[in-house]
């Protein structure tokens, strides 16, 4: 080291000046390392955190997604699949949560389902975190809090707020242009890591494509009748508060939207555009036998014009800039800052929306009827989602899973 210092014109001559220079640089390096350790505390916590779920007694199996396609085994994308089989012949449904982790009403809805579900006919499959890699990092440049906490009668339950796309730690590099398989449609480069742009997936594709392929394989092998992909949308996005449905599921979605709008909350429906490739509502409908439905709830947190993106905004959805946008008619869903768009409201919408679509599938196709219950929209609005989340410390250990 001393020879290097001697070779540095700025170091002056060997001796006290050289040692001072080395000490200065070691000090700066140590300061940088301290800064790195302190500054990445939340990043490291988000990377390793696992959510706890107390699954209902209706659980019959938990299998890794890689059981359907080995190409994702050993990766963060190998999500656990929870199976609730009544043992009575009937229809089957997949609830797909967490494809975009920065839309957290989606996995939380899946958790509320898993913790409270009863099944009397047919089968229910739940994936709460479809893209765990994306859930393990924050969104670059958006200053999101890493976690949010839900109050329950026994304490607080913590959930993560993630990103939209698979982390570069799991998949790199991005292509200059992402060419969707098999349509060959050109998409934005980052969509190569977007789980909801890579369906139906491919067995020898990138990690996100392989994950989509594994989910498609599961749907095909299990002959799942209905796939409900749960999302949240910014309120300046036209398909907010909407079912987006493959044309084969069009009628059941229309009926479900009508019933929900008449009895519970405003809900629109839209048929999946045939030219919009890679999304579940298009590709699962085209490449599997399943009816494909995507649900969007209103999430002010992800709109670009809101104020500070805090945990409170995530939980309450109350924002003055959102109100200004609403007053000027710039939003595609009703908004009132007094009530906001709380997590309870968004999760309740998803619970009610999924239950209604399942019910309508049974009306249109009696052989595919599923007998299932979970907390209703009205119950969640009255009691809050925390009421329906169970204390892992007091639960039967066989029912507690780290997700």
């Amino acid at each position, binding site marked *: 080291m001393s020879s290097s210092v001697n070779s540095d014109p700025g170091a002056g001559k060997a001796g006290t000046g050289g040692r001072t220079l080395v000490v200065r*640089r070691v000090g*700066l390096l140590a300061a940088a390392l301290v800064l790195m350790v302190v500054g990445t505390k939340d990043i490291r916590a988000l990377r390793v955190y696992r959510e706890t779920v107390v699954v209902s007694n209706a659980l019959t199996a938990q299998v890794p997604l890689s059981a359907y396609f080995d190409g994702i085994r050993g990766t963060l994308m190998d999500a656990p699949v929870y199976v609730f089989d009544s043992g009575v012949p009937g229809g089957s449904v997949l609830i797909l949560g967490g494809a975009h982790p920065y839309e957290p009403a989606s996995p939380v809805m899946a958790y509320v389902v898993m913790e409270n579900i009863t099944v009397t006919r047919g089968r229910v499959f739940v994936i709460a975190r479809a893209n765990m890699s994306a859930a393990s990092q924050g969104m670059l440049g958006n200053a999101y809090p890493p976690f949010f906490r839900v109050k329950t009668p026994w304490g607080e339950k913590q959930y993560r707020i993630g990103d939209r796309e698979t982390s570069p730690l799991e998949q790199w590099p991005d292509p200059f242009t992402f060419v969707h398989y098999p349509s060959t449609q050109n998409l934005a480069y980052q969509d190569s890591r977007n789980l909801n742009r890579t369906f139906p997936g491919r067995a*020898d594709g990138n990690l996100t494509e*392989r994950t989509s392929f594994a989910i498609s394989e599961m749907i095909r092998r299990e002959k799942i009748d209905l796939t409900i992909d749960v999302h949240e949308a910014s309120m300046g996005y036209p398909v907010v508060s909407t079912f987006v449905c493959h044309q084969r599921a069009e009628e059941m979605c229309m009926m479900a939207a009508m019933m929900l709008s008449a009895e519970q909350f405003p809900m629109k429906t839209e048929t999946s555009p045939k030219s919009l490739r890679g999304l579940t509502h298009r590709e699962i409908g085209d490449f599997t036998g399943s009816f494909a439905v995507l649900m969007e709830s209103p999430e002010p947190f992800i709109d670009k014009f809101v104020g500070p993106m805090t945990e409170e905004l995530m939980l309450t959805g109350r924002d003055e800039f959102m109100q200004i946008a609403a007053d000027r008619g710039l939003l595609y869903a009703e908004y009132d800052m007094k009530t906001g768009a709380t997590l309870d409201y968004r999760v309740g919408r998803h619970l009610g929306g999924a239950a209604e679509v399942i019910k309508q599938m049974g009306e249109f196709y009696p052989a595919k009827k599923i007998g299932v219950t979970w907390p209703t929209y009205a119950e969640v609005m009255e009691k809050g989602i925390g009421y329906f989340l169970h204390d892992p410390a007091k639960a039967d250990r066989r029912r507690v899973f780290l997700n």
Partner: protein
Amino acid sequence: MILVQEVIHQIYFVMAGLIAVVLLTRLFRRKTRPGLAYDIVYAYAIIPFILRALHIK
């Protein structure tokens, strides 16, 4: 195909580690721009490469 992807992906981390080593070397051993400001820049710029090489960020 998957193997090639995996090799390229691992090269990513190796490259990040190598750049961190180069920056570290230059922090202590360089012939131009010896001032304090450059010392700070070199020390600070190492951070993202260490984080990437360690699979943290």
